[in-house]
């Protein structure tokens, strides 16, 4: 029987990877829960407030984006816009080429993953090194991140030790501390040789033009210390009205992402270094990327643009915990990815239209979301869109038979009368399409079909009303 792609992937997943993903996501979910509970009497209201801030922002995106541009320009940054993936990549390489730069260091940015920036730069002959430890390992392995916050959640220390050995970073050693020290030493050389640093941004304040970057490793800070040009690639939806809003958002981001009150390094950058300062980039470029975000804004799923990329919905999701990130076949995995990836796919929507079905709609993703995105509702809207666009759904039983029964009272009544025959069939031994595996381990209850109508009739008579049309 045909299977959903995600089911096939999960079935073939190495059980040790599955166990590692489960352990790590479950423990982060617990830490988040404990910290929010200890620090806030009503964390739920704070989440809803953050959701209102983000919803307000995206519903006034024209105003706030223009304001952010104005503030950044005032501070001496150059602001660019990119409509498509290709535009975004070209904007970056044009700036680098204009400055004769061939070596750059990058800090982690989901939008750069989305536009495949590293592939583009490599094709242009520019060395671009990922500086986040996890992202670096993903890069040398030619792999893809499997979690928004923890890119190598799917790799073991042995995998990493083998990759480091292959890349000439030392003999095989799987001690996490040794791995980290080797990366530190290697990356030092790369930072000091690089001429430009590429970052994303977690937020951009409209009124003061501050890019907010959060990291635990300190890599984004290192990308902006010895380099002479800073290029930030930012989705247009990352804007927030002011610094006051950050009090709510930053207090939720670290707690939701990693169970930390604040991430170790929270940086606020608005502009190149000032005159007389000894270090920091002399030029700052901000590239605001659309890449179909305006299409999402126009759709019935615009709430997904509130997302602040904390990964809490991945950690809590029973499907993500079983399947890990690559099961989602796209840059954004988990519940947020099941919504965002098909929306950002454009005319390839059909290829990812199965993702919104990879959910039991349990609602846990909404409950942990720091900006209260109604993810289950959005999943349903996308399922509806897939239906409207006639996207085939392998493994889903055909419902035409039921539709016929349900819309023809006479056939329905007949089926209810003869349905009792099922009690005498050895269903567990018969090849029942779609239900076969299920019936092997379960028995069906005795047939009770058809009783509702007679019950309804007798009830109406007792109440002294007309039976009316019982169809």
């Amino acid at each position, binding site marked *: 029987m045909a299977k959903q792609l995600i089911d096939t992937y999960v079935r073939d997943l190495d059980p040790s990877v599955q166990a*590692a993903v489960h352990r790590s996501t479950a423990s982060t979910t617990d830490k988040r829960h404990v910290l929010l509970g200890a620090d806030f009497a009503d964390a739920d209201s704070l989440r809803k407030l953050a959701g209102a801030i983000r919803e307000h922002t995206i519903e006034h995106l024209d105003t706030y984006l223009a304001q952010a541009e104005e503030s950044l320009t005032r501070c001496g940054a150059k602001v660019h816009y990119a409509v498509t993936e290709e535009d975004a990549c070209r904007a970056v390489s044009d700036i680098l080429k204009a400055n004769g730069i061939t070596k750059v260091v990058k800090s982690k940015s989901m939008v750069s993953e989305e536009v495949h920036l590293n592939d583009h730069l490599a094709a242009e002959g520019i060395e671009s090194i990922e500086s986040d430890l996890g992202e670096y390992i993903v890069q040398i392995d030619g792999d893809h991140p499997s979690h928004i916050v923890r890119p190598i959640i799917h790799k073991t220390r042995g995998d990493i030790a083998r990759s480091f050995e292959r890349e000439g970073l030392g003999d095989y050693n799987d001690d996490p501390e040794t791995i980290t020290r080797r990366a530190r030493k290697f990356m030092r050389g790369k930072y000091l040789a690089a001429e430009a640093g590429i970052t994303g941004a977690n937020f951009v304040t409209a009124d003061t033009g501050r890019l907010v970057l959060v990291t635990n490793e300190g890599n984004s800070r290192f990308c902006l210390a010895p380099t002479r040009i800073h290029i930030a690639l930012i989705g247009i939806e990352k804007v927030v009205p002011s610094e006051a809003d950050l009090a709510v958002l930053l207090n939720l981001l670290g707690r939701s992402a990693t169970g930390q009150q604040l991430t170790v390094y929270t940086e606020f950058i608005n502009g190149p270094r000032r005159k007389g*300062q000894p270090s920091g980039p002399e030029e700052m470029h901000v590239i605001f990327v659309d890449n179909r975000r305006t299409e999402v804004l126009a759709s019935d799923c615009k709430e997904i643009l509130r997302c602040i990329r904390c990964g809490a919905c991945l950690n809590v999701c029973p499907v993500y915990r079983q399947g890990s990130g690559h099961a989602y076949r796209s840059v954004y995995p988990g519940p947020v990815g099941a919504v965002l990836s098909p929306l950002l796919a454009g005319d390839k929507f059909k290829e990812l239209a199965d993702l919104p079905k990879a959910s039991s709609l349990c609602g846990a993703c909404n409950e942990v979301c720091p900006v209260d995105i109604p993810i289950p509702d959005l999943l349903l809207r996308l399922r509806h869109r897939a239906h409207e666009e006639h996207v085939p759904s392998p493994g889903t039983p055909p419902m035409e038979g039921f539709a016929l029964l349900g819309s023809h009272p006479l056939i329905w009544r007949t089926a209810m009368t003869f349905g009792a025959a099922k009690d005498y069939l050895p269903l567990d031994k018969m090849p029942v399409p779609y239900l076969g595996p299920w019936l092997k381990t379960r028995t069906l209850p005795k047939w009770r079909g058809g009783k509702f109508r007679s019950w309804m009739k007798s009830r109406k008579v007792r109440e002294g009303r007309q039976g009316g049309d019982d169809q």
Partner: protein
Amino acid sequence: MSAREKIFADIKAALDPLPERVPRPTLPRGVADAQWLAGAGESTDLFSQRATAAGTVCFSSATDCLKWLSEQQVRKIYIPDELSDLAPSFSQITEVTNLYSRDQVDQIDAAFTSAAGGIAESGTIILTDESTPDRLAALAPWIHIAVLRMDRIHRSIEDALATMPDDPNIIWVTGPSKTADVEGILIQGVHGPGIQGCLLV
């Protein structure tokens, strides 16, 4: 049509049909403060307590700091001119320099810089380009000790955001550089300091 014009036109086209738009929520003062903040006592003590919890080593006097540093394996210490008062005592334990350059990144094991402020609620050290001009000095050495004036400690994260200095590069540091990328195991000192210190003055 330029990319900018197209994006703004598309945003407008997406938003125009909305029957109404969510108004800007009002943010009551202290709305995101930790619930224990009000009863948490004096700010300097709270700062030390929270910073320690975040993994920062706090010193209440230069003498304590000197004693601690003398027990570390330190070859060379960077002390910038604005903190030159500290230099004589620290030069008793090892070589002290007031110059920080790229070529010395591997020789300097510890650096002092002055902090622009702190946040008691989270035990955060605030660095700016103005307070800490050399970005590398506060980042590359294994040990970084920020010298923080107690009267510059903000009570809450919200307070710190309400009075952001006019500086293009503000950094909040809450503990040492760390990662849990390898199997979720916590390791300190990835790219930045493995030991983050704070000397309160």
